[in-house]
């Protein structure tokens, strides 16, 4: 019985955390309108290409 209760509590905890993801999503708001966002990776630049400070 305790085992089932603990597993249920763990699932509930992670459901709460998923809810927190939604809260953070509200804090930062939706993606800006009229702007196309890229979805690709940015390669690491080599030392020679490094942007000078």
């Amino acid at each position, binding site marked *: 019985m305790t085992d089932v209760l603990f597993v249920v509590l763990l699932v509930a905890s992670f459901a709460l955390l998923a809810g927190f*993801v939604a809260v953070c*999503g509200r804090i930062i708001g939706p993606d800006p309108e009229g702007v196309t966002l890229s979805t690709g990776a940015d390669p690491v630049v080599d030392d020679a290409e490094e942007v000078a400070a």
Partner: protein
Amino acid sequence: MTIGGWLQLLALIVLLAASVPILGSYMAKVFGGKKAPGDRFFSPIERGIYRLGGIDPEREQKWTIYALALLAFSLFSVVFLYVLQRVQEHLPLNPTHVKGVPSFTALNTAVSFLTNTNWQNYSGETTMSHLTQMAGLAVQNFVSAAVGLAVAIALIRGLTRHRAGTIGNFWVDLTKGIVRILLPFAFVFALVFVAQGVTQNFNGNTTATTVEGKSQVIPGGPVASQESIKQLGTNGGGFYNANSAHPFENPTGFTDFLQIYLLLVIPFSLAWTFGKMAGNKKQGIAVLMAMLALWLAASVGAMLLEANGNSALDAVKVNQQTTSSQPGGNMEGKESRYGPLSSGLFAASTTDTSTGAVNASHDSFTPLGGMVPLVNMMFGEVSPGGVGSGLYGMLIFALLSVFIAGLMVGRTPEYLGKKIQAAEMKLVVIYLLAVPLVILAFAGASVVMTTPQASIFNPGAHGLSEVTYAFTSVANNNGSAFAGLNGNTDWYNITFTICMLVGRFVLMIAALAVAGSLARKQTVPESAGTFPTDTPLFTGLLVSVIVVVVGLTFLPVLALGPIVEHLGL
């Protein structure tokens, strides 16, 4: 402090200075999306894993999907580990016939290893089967570190990408972290530990007769393979109850030195990775120097305070000087092979990172010496912190620092060309307040409620330090125990579990949200009014902000605990 102590510290710094650029650059290439060393060997392994898991490695995720994938993976991991502990008596590789772990301890341990805390309310050699140690705890040592690494890399991407809707793919980052970084290095160092005499077998208990004719039980098991990832992944959970003070876990001066090096090397290297991925090494070096300054101050402080000994013993004319026959200093609770210097360095390093392994009893340190590990954890494990968690914690402090600097000069703060606005600052504040809130609330409740009080072995200021240390340790996912507190009660098992979950996942989600918010912003070019964040001035500001924020939060409880105890000596 003896010359030997200074030389040990110097050797560690030299070794780290040599390793950090190499490992940092390697990690930048691994996560950077282009060719990386070892592709020929690792790529087929990764492709196999992706195929098995139905993962499309080319498909990137928004921060919300990244966070939900992380949570789903973590939920599966924690339930698996809980069940494994409960049914271990019916499974193979249980030569000592240990029973299933009691439910409250199993819950605490499952969450503890999931969150990279490795707080242990049990004695490993008498509670866990070899299968649980290997398939449960050691596996979590790898994956929990890799999850932290993934979040740090995602935050770097958020800071460095321009108008991007995605921050990477959680499954790919997790796989790369395990396959290309943690597994190969852990394998090599496990062999070094075996060569040095760390136990590695599948034996149960061996009964031996000592030279005095008495009977002694010597527990065996797969220790070395767990030991290397215990340190490398900043996990800290020992195979044996005595952790790194046990001669089978840490047999020589060399293994002691190596363990300190291993727990520091990835967190420091990640700052270098940050500089490389940002395309400006100086940005990484500024963060690295802030981490180094805090770690060095703590290490030298702990070593000096323990080497100077206990002033109460000076008063009764006990000789605490270093001589040919004694290491000197405060030897209470120390392993005599390591003495106060190595113990001080180990204590500072294990709490500056989120490791929590110990080679001495922190409860037996002098009051101020014991305050050093406590304050290290209160810093939020950023100096250099845990694998991944140290870097994302430090970057959150960096955002706070540029915000404060922006307020001073009346300009919108920027970091790496990204404007830091209200949304990011709300998330930064959530990140910075969540952990102190659970530490102070639960520690406060524990010292006023009757049942939790019964678990505190020492009265007065020292007892307060013990309770505060325990909650600080679990909430910051460190896992080291001060001792002097029976944490294996229902109250502490449950409250520690809550603290560990908050300290891990609330902070990770906040960091990922910051990453998502920053990734989609455009990068603005530097102007005359931009506050440079790659200079010693910024490093100084960053360190100052950390010290002030943590000081304002925790000074009252420190004053009532270790500081009062020191003044009472």
